[in-house]
Structure formats: structure tokens, C-alpha cells
């Protein structure tokens, strides 16, 4: 039931792009993306809903493929501040709890 995130870790140079994926074996109502820095609270980035609606961060884009039950987070022209662990949380139609992936660790170097 836990979504699978890939890759597990990414190292980028400042300015490079990255894609983080989140896949579920169950039908989803929405996918929530968060970034967490060490010792800090997860920070909201984006919600993608079944049907195509999106809510979130202006500078980050994401997609949700309902047929595949897969979401992708696109980080373009990465900045040092993008470093952290990215988590996807999946919400099914029958209740509101989020089931989280194991995270993708992103390091952006100068």
C-alpha cells in the first residue's frame, strides 16, 4: 500500500534538473508532495488531484498519470535551497489519511 519513490537519492549541480517519481498500486484520489530538511518539519509543495487539478508552489511543477497511478515532481534549474528529502503522500478516496513513501534525498551542490 505504501507508494514507491524513485530514485532513492539524487546529487545535482546547481542549475541542473531532476525528476522524482511516486507510484502506487492502488487507485488514488490525490498525491501530496513535501520537502523536509534535516530536523525540520515537512514543507508543503504541491497537491495533484484525480481529474487534473493542481494546487501548490509556483516554481515547482508536477504531473499525475491516473492510468498508471504515478506522480512525477519536476525540479528545474535547481538551487542550493532545493536540497532535502522529498516525500510523496498518497490519499485514497475512502479516507483522508496520507500514506507516505520512503523519500528521495536530493543534494544540490555549487
Amino acid at each position, binding site marked *: 500500500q505504501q507508494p514507491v519513490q524513485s530514485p532513492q537519492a539524487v546529487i545535482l549541480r546547481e542549475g541542473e534538473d531532476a525528476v522524482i517519481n511516486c507510484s502506487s498500486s492502488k487507485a488514488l484520489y490525490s498525491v501530496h508532495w513535501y520537502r523536509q530538511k534535516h530536523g525540520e*518539519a*515537512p514543507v*508543503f509543495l504541491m497537491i495533484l488531484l484525480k481529474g487534473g487539478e493542481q494546487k501548490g508552489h509556483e516554481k515547482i511543477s508536477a504531473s499525475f498519470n491516473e492510468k498508471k497511478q504515478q506522480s512525477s515532481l519536476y525540479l528545474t534549474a535547481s538551487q542550493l535551497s532545493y536540497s532535502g528529502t522529498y516525500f510523496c503522500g498518497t490519499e485514497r478516496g475512502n479516507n*483522508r489519511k496520507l500514506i507516505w513513501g*520512503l523519500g528521495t534525498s536530493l543534494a544540490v551542490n555549487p
Partner: protein
Amino acid sequence: GAGVSQSPRYKVAKRGQDVALRCDPISGHVSLFWYQQALGQGPEFLTYFQNEAQLDKSGLPSDRFFAERPEGSVSTLKIQRTQQEDSAVYLCASSAQGVRADTQYFGPGTRLTVL
């Protein structure tokens, strides 16, 4: 307040002690969630409230865990007879409405260490 706050930020307990962790959600937020995050893992759902009603407690790992939100604002997560496997960061989140796909805003967490 400006965001979700949690107290204490750090708690060390001896095995067998009871602990109480507090969450102050964003003012006016209807929904409140508790998650447990082990080192290097994603958060795991414990329970959630809509106002004072506990609508889902399926993630509570044992009957030693108990959560309440008596007046629909502040919430307390209580762990009785703590065990070493309870060591984790306990995160609280609140959302404005009681609907699906609503943004959850997280507090900084309480790091519990059970010796």
C-alpha cells in the same frame, strides 16, 4: 498563531514511563493529524481528528497510544508505558477544512527518545 507548534521539542523518557505530547494547530483549522516518523523513514499515519471527533485511529500501534482533542483545538498524544521502539519523531499537522486533498501544515515535531 503563525503555524503549528508542538511541545516539548525533545523528550527523553525511561522505559515504562508515560509521556504526553502537545500540538497547537493553526487557529481555526478543523482537521488535525498525528504521524510517527522513524529515523530515515517517511511519516506514518497514527490518527486524525475533525474538530473534537477522532475519525480514524487505525494507525495507532497499540493500546498504549491514546490521542485526544477535547475542545477541537489543542491535541495531546499520550503514550503509556513507553518502550524503546516508541523512539521516533512525532509530527502533528493541521488542515483548514475537513475535506479530501486539503493542504496539511506540519509542526516541527517532538523527538522522543526512550532509554
